[in-house]
């Protein structure tokens, strides 16, 4: 069974555009424009898109904060808005920009309050907190008021807060935003481990490409409220013509170069040549052709960076007329 099922999910907002002194025109804008999404239990899904693409709005509809304007949605077999309270017990949510913690109280107190809000049996709660304390190293600041925590410490605290009631699905809206490298790695490592255990379904929005590469086997990319890609990272590479790059160093620049289909010479500076390969071209064929020339000293293959792939993806959509 699917943990999350959305079909034709849409959300329209009315914006008022000023026209002259008093006249205002109402315009319907689709923030989410017919999204289909199914997520299996235990999946770790990256939900990406440029700013304003409709990521947060989708998450808000999945978590029961906002009512969809159209389409169907079910999470854990529940309809989010009418069954908000039932759903709330079964999902965990981390909004990177908004705290679930009690600002002026020691971190520990927030967890105690959440235990009561979610009516978690004490033993279960203690066991989950124990695990988070170990994995996220909370102990040094467990008795510090939340307002005095660093952003990285706070985010580790937020993650814990979202997990103490043992949610089946956890939604994370930009969980690594603004964190330093060490904290990012701590959060990522934790999520990776949580994802591997296979019980918890994780839906994560992020702008951090390292998050995606490290964590998500499946990526859904949304732009202008529509899903423009749904699949693995490899499929994304294949589809958006991501190019691998082969850099070779010769003892002396070769006189003639081999011509192979899908291989382009990007630059030649002295003894160093850089080739770019289309998705279908073979690195092996290029390497054997080059080594036949003789005098090959060094060779490296660079995998395409996801950053470039995503950038292309966003740009390829720009030509479309705005709705």
């Amino acid at each position, binding site marked *: 069974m699917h943990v999350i099922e959305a079909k034709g999910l849409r959300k329209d*907002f009315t914006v008022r555009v000023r026209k002259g002194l008093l006249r205002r025109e109402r315009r319907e804008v689709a923030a989410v424009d017919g999204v289909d999404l199914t997520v299996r239990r235990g999946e770790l899904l990256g939900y990406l898109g440029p700013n304003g693409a409709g990521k947060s*709005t989708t998450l808000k509809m999945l*978590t*029961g904060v906002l009512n969809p304007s159209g389409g169907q949605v079910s999470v854990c077999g529940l309809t989010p808005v009418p069954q908000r309270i039932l759903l709330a017990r079964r999902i965990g949510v981390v909004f990177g920009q908004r705290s679930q913690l009690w*600002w002026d109280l020691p971190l520990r*107190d927030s967890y105690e309050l959440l235990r009561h*809000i*979610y*009516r978690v049996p004490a033993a279960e709660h203690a066991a989950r907190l124990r695990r988070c304390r170990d994995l996220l190293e909370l102990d040094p600041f467990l008795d510090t*008021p939340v307002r005095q925590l660093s952003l990285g410490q706070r985010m580790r605290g937020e993650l814990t807060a979202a997990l103490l009631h043992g949610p089946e699905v956890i939604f994370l809206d930009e969980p690594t935003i603004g964190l330093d490298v060490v904290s990012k790695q701590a959060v990522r490592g934790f999520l990776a481990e949580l994802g591997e255990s296979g019980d918890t379904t994780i839906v994560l929005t992020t702008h951090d490409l390292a998050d995606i590469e490290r964590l998500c086997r499946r990526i859904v990319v949304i732009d202008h409220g529509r899903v423009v890609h749904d699949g693995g990272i490899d499929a994304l590479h294949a589809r958006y013509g991501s190019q691998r790059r082969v850099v070779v160093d010769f003892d002396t620049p070769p006189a003639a170069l081999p011509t192979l289909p899908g291989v382009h010479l990007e630059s030649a500076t002295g003894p160093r040549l850089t080739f770019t390969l289309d998705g279908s071209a073979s690195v092996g064929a290029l390497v054997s052709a080059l080594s036949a020339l003789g005098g090959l000293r060094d060779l490296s293959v660079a995998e395409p960076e996801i950053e470039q792939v995503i950038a292309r993806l966003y740009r390829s959509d720009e030509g479309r007329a705005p709705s």
Partner: protein
Amino acid sequence: MAEPSTAAIYRRLIAAQVRSQASYRASFVLDLLSNVVFLGADLLTVLVVFHRVPVLAGFSLTDTLLVFGLSSLGFSLADLAVGNIDRMQRHVRTGLLDAVLIRPLGVLWQLLVLDVGVRRLGRVCSGVVVLVVAVHLAGVPLTPADVLLLVITPLAGAVFFSAVFVATATVAFWWVDSGELSAALTYGGRDFTSYPMTVYGGWFRHVLAFGLGFGFVAYYPALILLDRPDPLGAPSWLGWCSPVLAAIAAVLAGLVWRTGVRHYRSTGS
């Protein structure tokens, strides 16, 4: 282990709020004190008026103090419990409303509890003092019926003002700059109910006393306590009607609130 009751959860949340606010010790104490002084300023207005005229629209200083005491105690209780709901717009902007929507508890109760103005306890205390002094000065005989009325009137007033706070704050869902309207009906309502109705004229009195129900907060109960007929000719049993009116107001405010939240969830603003 038994499931904790919902009331127990809210008690814990309120206790957390008290701890939070008390963690800023100096400012907490100062706020408590300044809230005591606040009421003093309003009281001073009444005293200044009666310094110039011995009788105002048929009511003496001590009679007026009783009306004032009932009104301000009811108002300060409401202000303590729900006064911060007027920060609704900010809750929407900062995302507190979203945070509250993803927890398995009622939205309005959570918002009230997460923002309860503990510092306003000072005003409640001084409200009690003013009322006790007024009862003494006005020579209320304190029959069992009087005592009962003295207890239910401020409580009903508190519910009534709370309803006004919630209903007017909800307007913020549709209209960003609703603060003025809200203040006019809450603080304005308190000022209106602090004096005998006879002070006000014509349609203005009718609209506020009956149309909006403010007459029942303090004026009609005070007439019973003072054992005098209404100079405007209303029957005296009206003084016992404040709980009914408070209940009606609470139901209406609840409906307005639900509509407001539904609107938020469909528009996101």
